[in-house]
């Protein structure tokens, strides 16, 4: 997957391959409550990423030894569909990559969900990537946050995630698959918007201190927009019913 051979030109005249500037997000659309059998669910289209996230529970933690008598445990499954991507990225079954992303997603939600309210139970998060085009872990977390809020499980905040990276010496926001493969750095970050606490920070490649700061600023700026879209998505189902009767 790594950019073997010659590096293609990724920024031409200040514009990226899909016509975006360095600080532009791809188009983001979130559809709430798409799975009827889940406690909460969301479908997200982020550029060419298509992801479904669903939250089940809290329910009795099984097998029993995984339960914690003082708080709920979160179990997360991130999976790419076999048809989701070119090449070997989206292999079925758990693999090194999907186990890693499941783990980091789980840890994001352990820090926002009020687990102490449901001791001895488990909360399941499922993130299914139907079509992947770079930044699926960030999109997955963003979708799962909406699903978690809609499930009615108390949480301190609705987190969002987005990645920043470096192409040549330019710091850019929200990398897609081609940029990710040939970029010099890729840094997905999950943030709690209320306090700007960082819940996830990973990095491939290298950034200087200044580039890191620049990337973080871009992420926090873009985060306002992402959080607004999440906010609207969570409120939409209720707003629609209110508007039906009150004009």
């Amino acid at each position, binding site marked *: 997957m790594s950019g073997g051979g010659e590096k293609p030109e990724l920024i031409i005249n200040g514009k990226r391959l899909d016509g975006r500037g360095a600080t532009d997000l791809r188009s983001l659309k979130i559809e709430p409550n798409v799975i009827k059998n889940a406690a*909460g669910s969301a479908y997200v289209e982020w550029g060419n990423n298509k992801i479904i996230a669903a939250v089940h529970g809290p329910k009795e933690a099984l097998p029993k030894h995984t339960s914690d008598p003082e708080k709920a445990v979160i179990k997360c499954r991130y999976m790419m569909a076999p048809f989701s991507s070119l090449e070997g990225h989206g292999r079925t079954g758990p693999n090194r990559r999907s186990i890693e992303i499941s783990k980091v997603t789980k840890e994001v939600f352990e820090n926002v969900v009020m687990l102490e309210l449901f001791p001895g139970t488990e909360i399941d998060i499922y993130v299914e990537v139907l079509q992947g085009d770079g930044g699926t872990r960030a999109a997955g977390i963003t979708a799962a946050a909406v699903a978690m809020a809609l499930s009615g499980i108390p949480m301190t905040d609705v987190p969002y995630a987005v990645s920043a990276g470096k192409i040549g010496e330019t710091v850019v926001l929200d990398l897609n698959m081609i940029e990710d493969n040939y970029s010099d750095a890729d840094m997905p970050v999950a943030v709690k918007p209320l306090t700007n606490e960082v819940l996830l920070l990973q990095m491939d490649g290298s950034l200087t201190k200044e580039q890191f700061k620049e990337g973080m600023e871009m992420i926090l700026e873009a985060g306002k927009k992402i959080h607004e879209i999440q906010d609207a998505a969570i409120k939409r189902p209720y707003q629609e019913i209110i508007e039906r009767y009150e004009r």
Partner: protein
Amino acid sequence: MQRIVIPGEKISDTSVRMHNTLIHNGKTYSTIVGLYNDEKSTLIPLEGLWNPAYGDTVVGVIEEDRLNTYNVNLNSPYKGLLISKFVQEQLNKGDVVEASVKELDKTQTVVLMRPRKLSGGKIFSITPSKVPRVLGKGNNMLKELSTSTKSSIIVGHNGVVWIKGGNMQLAMDAILRIQEEAHTSGLTDRIKEMLSKGN
């Protein structure tokens, strides 16, 4: 004025002690998706789980008949437990019972009391946070439902509803409509209209 809030959304600039909120830097934030009313300063959850409290009525299904106890499925993270000593009639696996909550012990088990077997009828579940709206003020909504559909209806605080007899389909439709439109005003009138039309 009512507005919908999401987790992490500020509801007040001062610290107000309320259910489902957290205080950060002297300001109050919601932790749930809910309906916040500025004037009454109330936060009503729109989605949510059942918090067992003493005396809550629940409807459950007998899951297992153990030596001295019955395990009851309450459609929630909590397990229901009935002590055989206090059960007057013979209960079998699959029977539907109505009971009230005696206590919640440390292992997340709800100990039940005063069980009553419900024979026949149908059960279905609704979101537990919408139960108060289905009951109405002083159980008025429930009375309205059962008198105009002539069904006997029991609504458990755990979100399980049992109905029998009368116009069951209409009663069920009405309850599901209350669940969906619980956060709108003028709901009682609309339900009354729906019930009178359906009959």
